[in-house]
Structures are given as C-alpha cells and as structure tokens.
C-alpha cells in the first residue's frame, strides 16, 4: 500500500482525506462563490448566488464525515485543541447558521443580496480561520499547557496566515472549476482560477518560509501537486484564450488531482502523530453497504431530475 495509507489506520485515513477533499469542493464553491457573486454582476454571478444555499448544505453534510474520521485519527489532539479554543471553536456553529440564512437572503432579495453575501463571506472566513487555527494547535502539544494557563483563545502560529493564503487561492481555483461547467461565459472564471493558482503558489512559498516542510515519502505527493497545478494552469490559460471544452476537462481533472495531492501534503506532518487504532469495532460491512446503496440512491436522484434540469 502506498504511503500514507500503509499504516494500521490507512483505511480510515483514506476515508478522512477523500471526504475532506469532497468537503473542500463544496466549501470552496461557497466561499469563493460568495466572493465572486459579491463583486461581479454577470449571469454567472447570478447563477452562483442561487446555488449557494444548496452548496452550503452539501458542504456541511460532506463536512460531517471528515469531522467523524479526524476523531478516530487524532482524537486526543482534536479534542484538546477544540477545548483550548473553547468558545472560539463553538462560535463556528452560529457563524455557519448566520452564513446559511444570509445566503438564503442573498438568493431571495435583490435589494439585500450584497450585504447578505458580505455577511456570509465574513462568517465563512471566520470559520476557515478558526479551523486553520485548530489544525495548527492540534500539532502544538508542547504549547498546550501554557496556552491554557494564559486563557488564550487565539493561536497565532507563524504558519497560520500563509496557510489561509494557500487556502484562499485553492478555493478560488476549485470554485472556478465547478462553476465553469455551468457557465456560458468561462473566461472570467478562467481568470479567477489562474489568479487563485498564483495566490496559492505565493502562499505556499510563504508557508515554506514559515517552516512548513515536506520530506520523505510525502515528497512524491508534493511533486504530484506541483505537476497537477502546472497542467491545470496551462489548461486554464487555454480556456481563457479559446474556451475549449476539452481544456476545461483537463483543468478539472488536473485540479482534482491537485486537490487530492494537496490534502495528503496538508496531512503529511500529522501522519506520524496518528493515534493507534482504538480497539475492535464492528459495523464496517453496514457502512460499506450503506455507501453502495447511498451512492445508488443519489445516482437515481440525479437521473430522476435530469429531464427537469434539461427543460
């Protein structure tokens, strides 16, 4: 089995990373889509605005799975960081509720849609920031005790800001890749995707400068990420220049590869910290059956609504 899936918890890690990637697609659409709909007035912006509540629903639903699996891989660290941030971590939920209703308001009201989108965007940025802090704090066990004693609620690690820059750029590119499939005019989205890549690369360099390194077997995933990002950028250039569907296909495939490699690279420093498996647990067959039946049910739903979508 390939690293990092060769350990005892390889299966759970694979599920964690796969579901995290799916969550990232929807979350990126919501965050970058809110920003796009806020600043642009074209038909794509309007279409994006109407889809945002649905996409946030999907993002939250998809986010439950990695939230479950991270509690198996890093239970002690996750709970500790969550407790250390305390009310800050709890504030994620009301922020999402406000953001959710703001998206519905943005969809329903032409008069209030900009204010609603700005509010929603602020809520989602707070969530992204809090979650990145949690991610950093989970790995900072030597600092936990002093952090707690000081009563701090904000963890300002040197890698936090560059991590958010990488995330912002990646979200823009992922959003563009999804939105482009439904857009009549793709050039603006190609520019968003390319700008996102540039921001990600700048953020990655900053992150590296701040001490984030990738060594050993994780290096192969970083190489894959770099290669996929280069291919994806070239494909987006073609989309911007000539708007070829085949180029969009390549951009999407390369973007998907980049996303998968990125979640592995993001996880690389934590792989050595994965806790031993927590004893025997049954029900995996039930889960496997549920996944098959659930996928079939979702496929049926898509098929059932397909004629309506074409109309």
């Amino acid at each position, binding site marked *: 089995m390939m690293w990092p899936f060769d350990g005892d918890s390889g299966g759970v890690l694979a599920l964690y990373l796969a579901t995290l990637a799916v969550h990232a697609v929807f979350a990126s659409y919501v965050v970058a889509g809110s920003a796009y709909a806020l600043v642009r007035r074209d038909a794509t912006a309007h279409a994006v605005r109407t889809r945002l509540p649905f996409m946030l629903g999907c993002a939250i639903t998809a986010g*439950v799975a990695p939230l479950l699996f991270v509690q198996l891989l890093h239970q002690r660290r996750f*709970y500790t960081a969550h407790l250390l941030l305390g009310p800050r971590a709890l504030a994620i*939920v009301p922020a999402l*509720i406000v953001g959710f209703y703001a998206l519905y308001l943005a969809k329903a009201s032409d008069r209030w849609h900009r204010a609603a989108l700005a509010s929603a965007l602020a809520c989602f940025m707070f969530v992204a920031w809090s979650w990145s802090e949690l991610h950093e704090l989970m790995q900072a066990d030597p600092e*936990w005790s002093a952090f707690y004693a000081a009563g701090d609620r904000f963890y300002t690690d040197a890698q936090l800001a560059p991590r958010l820059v990488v995330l912002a750029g990646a979200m823009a590119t992922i959003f563009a890749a999804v939105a482009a499939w439904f857009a009549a005019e793709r050039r603006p989205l190609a520019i968003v995707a390319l700008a996102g890549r540039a921001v990600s690369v700048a953020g990655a360099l900053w992150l590296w400068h701040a001490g984030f390194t990738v060594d050993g077997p994780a290096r192969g995933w970083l190489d894959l990420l770099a290669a996929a990002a280069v291919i994806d950028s070239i494909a987006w250039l073609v989309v911007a220049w000539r708007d070829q569907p085949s180029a969009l296909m390549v951009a999407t495939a390369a973007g998907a590869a980049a996303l998968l490699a990125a979640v592995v690279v993001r996880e690389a420093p934590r792989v050595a910290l994965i806790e031993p498996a927590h004893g025997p*647990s049954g029900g995996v067959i039930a*889960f496997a059956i*549920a996944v098959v039946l659930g996928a079939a049910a979702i496929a049926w739903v898509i098929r059932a609504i397909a004629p*309506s979508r074409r109309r």
Partner: protein
Amino acid sequence: MVPHYPVNDFGPVMKGMVIGGVGIVHVFLAQFAIGGGLLLWYFERLAQRGVPDARRFVDGFFQVLVLVSFVLGALTGVAIWFTTIQVGARTIGLMIDEFHWLWATEWVCFSVEVVAGYAFVRFKAQLDDRSRLRLLALYAVAAWLSLFFINGILSWQLTPGTPPGEGRVWAGFFNASFWPSLLYRTCVAMALAALAACIVINTMDLDRDRRAALIRRASRFAAPIAAMPLLALWYLAVIPEDSRGWLLGGSMPMLMFVGIAAASSLLVGGYAIVALIVRRLYVNGATATLLLALAFGATAAGEFVREGARKPYTVRGALYSTSIAPNEVAALRASGATADDPYPLRDAARYPNGQLARGAKVYRALCDACHTMHGANAVVELSHTWTDDQLRLNIAKLQHTKSFMPPFAGNADDVEAIAQLIEWERAGAPHAWSEHAASPEIARWLDEAGIR
C-alpha cells in the same frame, strides 16, 4: 494513566445546561424533519389520489422544512458534537471509538436525505407524479434511517449491554432500550410533523373549509401518539432498576420532569386524538403553535429525563460523569486526582495557598462537569448547611451521600483540599487562609466508601 483534557469554565452556567440546550433544540428539529418526511410522502399520495390542496401543502411545507430543519437541524447536529467535546470529551470519544462505522452509516443516510430533499425542493414543479412520490419516499426513509442509527448509539449510553471495546457493536447497538426508544421517537416525530403541518396549513391562502379538510388529514398522522404511553412504560421496564427508581420517586426533580413530559404529551395527544381526530374540530394557527410549544416542552423534559437517568454515568458501567472510568478510580485514590493533570490553573493567583489551589484543580477534575461553584447546581449552595466534618464525610463517601454521584476519585489530601476550597468560597474568598492537614478519618471514610 487517566487522559486529561483542558477544562473550560462556563461561569454560572452548568455544563449540562449547555449541552442540554443545544441537544433539546436539535432533537426537536431532527424529529420534526423525520416526521416531516413521512408526512410529506403521505400528503403527496393524497394529492395523487385527488385530494384538493394536498400538493400545495406539500410544496409549501417542504419549503419550511428546508429553511428550518436543513439549516438549524443540520447545524445544531454539528453543535451537539462540538458542545459534547467541550463538556465530556472522553464520553464522545468512547462513543466514536465504539460506533464510528455506524455513525458513518448514519452520515450516509443523512447525505441521501439532504440530496433527495434539495432535489425535491428545486425540481418539484417539473417532476412527474411517480418521481415526486419516489423522491419523497427516499427522503422519508433516509431521514428515518438516520434516526434508526443515532437512536442505537444514544440508547446504548444507558443500556450498553456489553462493555465497550470488545468489538460487539451490534449487541451494543440493539441494546435493551433500542426498540422502545426508536418507536417512541418515531411517534414523537410524527406528532411534531402533524402539529407543524397545522401551523403551515393555517398560513395557506385557502378558505376555512379547505384548510379544515387538510388539518383533518394532518391530524390523522398524529394518531400514533396514542401508543406513546405504552412505549414509555416499555422503556421504563427495560432500563436499569436503579435508573427507574431514580425517575419514579428516587429524585423529586427527575420525577417532576417525568411528570412534565408525561403531562405535556398527554395534553398534546389528548387534544390531537379527542379534538382533532374523533370530534374533527378545527385548530387555528395560534392553538397549533401552542400545542407545538407544549410538544417542545415535552421533548425538553424527556431529553432531561433520558440524560438524568444515566447518572452517575455518561456511559453506564464504562464512564462516570466525571469522565473517569470505574477501573481508574483505585489508581486515582492512590496517586491523587490531579497528579497527572498537565494543565495549570488559569486563576492560580486567586488562591492564597497551595492547598486551595490543589482544591481548585480537584474541583475542576471531579466536580466541574456537573456543578458550578456559585451558579447553577452550586457546590457552595448544596453544602452550605453541612458541618465541617459532614462536608468531608459526604465528599469521601460521595456515592453513598447521593446515589447519582460517582465515587470520589482522589485521596484524603484531595478531599481536604476541596473541603478547604468550599469553606474558603463560603467565607467570601478572603486573602489569607491557613492550610489544614487531612485527618486520618478521611482516609478511613474513603476506604469504607470503596471504589464502586
């Protein structure tokens, strides 16, 4: 070694109130969503059989369901996870360890529910009859299955059957209280949906006769509420004897909450069956809202009872409410409750001596999960009539002082330290306070109390 997590202080608010508040709202909304799915399928069938206005109701009701349940319901579900981490990290960790694959299965059901729900909301007007009915059936089944799975995990906390960690997940899942709890919750879900439907119907732009016709249909959906008393008795019969005794008179507050849950359910059920189903009376929006509020009260009281019945455990036999396992108490009696606690006090400077600071750490480790110092369920208030010796005796023999308390998981010095802390707080937290050695009697009381 007992794993230690950092502890947050919620001020005068008892932690149980935080998780209880979030939990009650979530349970109410989730059960409304589950019943709503079944109700919508029923009304869609009526619509396709020619019942006037039924389709208008389906489309309008689903909009409410999406706005309330898909947003608040889904996010309060995440909130429960977060608040449980804040209140009892070891408890949620144990449940995840034991049931993660079934929890993941529940997530698949939830995903299907969300996809089917959104697909219906977005494309309902364009779908043919067969697709509408099937989509609603899928939504209803997926929603109910999510209840099926989460019910097994939650009921396991009170009646686990087999010890956790042995891999006998299904034996734990289909525990003694699984079926009565599942059926009871299903009836509640249907009743909540019927009451919410009456409110929505009253907002529809129809004349009174047409609204009355829809209300009569919706009322029928509340009929399973008649089975709830029997299901409640079944539930009471299968829970542990001490929990049952505790609910039925052993504790006045618990008995009161049982009474509130039963009386509220009786009023809602009685109105639904006698007034709406038998006498076919009309229910206006205000009355329906009042009935739904009463149902919320019943849900709140019922959840309080369910949580309270587990005491002194969060997972019966496996984990005390202090997040200490029964088999860890002996070691903590020897080493002291906080010997391995790596987290210093946030307010260490407040305490005039080391013994009080130790008492504060013991309080944080053993009391803070259920008590506050001066707010809700305050230890200072609960013990203010106790003499000095009685205070130490009652703490040392905690599980005998009150049957719903866990054994004291510390040594004699810990007992003295926390007794000093309580006396110091009672005295108004003065700047000077002298230390006192633990008397040999405390060690004897601890030995007499035992570790179970």
